[in-house]
């Protein structure tokens, strides 16, 4: 049984996820999330800026304070850089908290698609055949964890091996072609 405190916590975390999803959605339209920390040095405006893109690429702008005597401002610049960095970390944290919502959405989509598929295969005139169909998910659910545990690392390793062999073959072919063209 879920307690009201647990329910409240779940709700809060989903709310945070929603905000993060909103952040991601905005960056879909703008190509990234910008974190901007402005400051003044001797009456001139400068800023530290970081752009986080959807593919996780990052572009940092370090302000070129040009004519200023940097030795005088190293400490101040260091503090502002630190403050900017906290803001960037918070943005990354918020992006990370969207996971819960994605999982929830994917669960809903999968449940709906599974339900539609099962309803489609049900033959109401032949209950026995239908029961046969229904037994498949239950049997596979029983073996699922073992299959996944066994297959996942092997598949991952295999894909890296294939990539390495492919690269090696490609280089070999290139070398052969170069040799041919030299001849």
């Amino acid at each position, binding site marked *: 049984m879920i307690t009201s405190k647990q329910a409240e916590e779940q709700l809060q975390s989903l709310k945070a996820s929603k905000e993060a999803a909103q952040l991601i959605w905005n960056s*879909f339209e*703008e*190509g*990234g999330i*910008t974190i*901007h920390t*402005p400051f003044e040095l001797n009456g001139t*405006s*400068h*800023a*530290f*800026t*970081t*752009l*986080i*893109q*959807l*593919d*996780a*690429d*990052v*572009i*940092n*702008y*370090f*302000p*070129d304070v*040009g004519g200023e005597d*940097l030795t005088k401002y*190293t400490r101040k*610049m*260091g503090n502002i*850089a630190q403050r900017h*960095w906290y803001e*960037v970390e918070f943005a*990354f944290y918020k992006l*990370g908290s969207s*996971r819960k919502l*994605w*999982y929830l959405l*994917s*669960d809903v989509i*999968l449940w709906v*698609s*599974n339900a539609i598929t099962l309803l489609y295969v049900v033959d109401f005139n032949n209950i026995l055949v239908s029961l046969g169909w229904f037994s*498949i*998910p*239950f*049997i*596979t*659910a*029983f*073996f*699922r964890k073992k*299959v*996944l545990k066994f297959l*996942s690392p092997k598949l991952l390793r295999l894909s*890296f091996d294939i*990539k*390495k062999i492919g690269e090696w073959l490609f280089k070999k072919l290139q070398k052969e072609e170069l040799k041919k063209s030299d001849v």
Partner: protein
Amino acid sequence: MENSLKSLASELLTLEVNTIFKENTTGAKMPINKRIALRDIIERYRKVLIEYGVAYRVGQPNESTDKQGYNKAVLRNIGAGEYSYIEVKHAAQGGKEYYESLQSKMQTDEDLEYLKNRIQMLYRIERQSSGMIGLFKNQRQKYQSEIKANKEGFDDSFNDKGSASDQMYPSQFGSHRWNNDITLAEMNQVEPLELETDQITAIRKAWELGTQQVLLQTVVQIDGDVTSYLTPKFVHMPADLRTMVMNFHQSSTNEATTHWSSLFKVLADLTGQAFSSLFGKK
């Protein structure tokens, strides 16, 4: 949407962290109208090509060759569409080859470094322009049926309308629905380009990087290879500033790598869930 997600997933195979030294970091935002953003990008490229002496704008007072007799590329297109980016790409490519041929003639290390910086910038212009050409090729593909049906605003080919060789090409308004070789006033009037998320991300990257000099770059590959580039400008910085920039770059690389791996985890979990759904209830 499906294609853009696929494209984003393939972009996830490498992680790139760039640190740029920038004057006037007052936070100008990329224009909401992507047509204008594309124009901002190409105008900066054109400016650099002219400044480097490898191209000139037709009709403007400028020599068509430099002191060494290099035939500069002519910039005749207006706007920021496929034809403009092809023109800029060729100018950058020619300029890069020309500068590369000059490398052996440089007498001091400083001159050589100066030339190498320019070669790098021309290479970036060439590469980013290629990306934009690809973007418009995708647009062509997307609107294939409208283009074939000769619908209004979907012209397939370039139309110079008989302009003389010493004149700018006219606006390609006939292809404005998929392209952007039109005047600034037209860009503000016509409907925005319909772009996918990965295309917007690419435009944003090109807009942000522009022609700024990258100080530090770290590229992390999916198979664990990490490559870092330090530019001479960074190496020659005062020690305090260099440490600060380095720490800044280092922190963002760490954070981005963590975020990157968590993105992978989400993807892996979601695909794992899809896989699990084949085998039954979670």
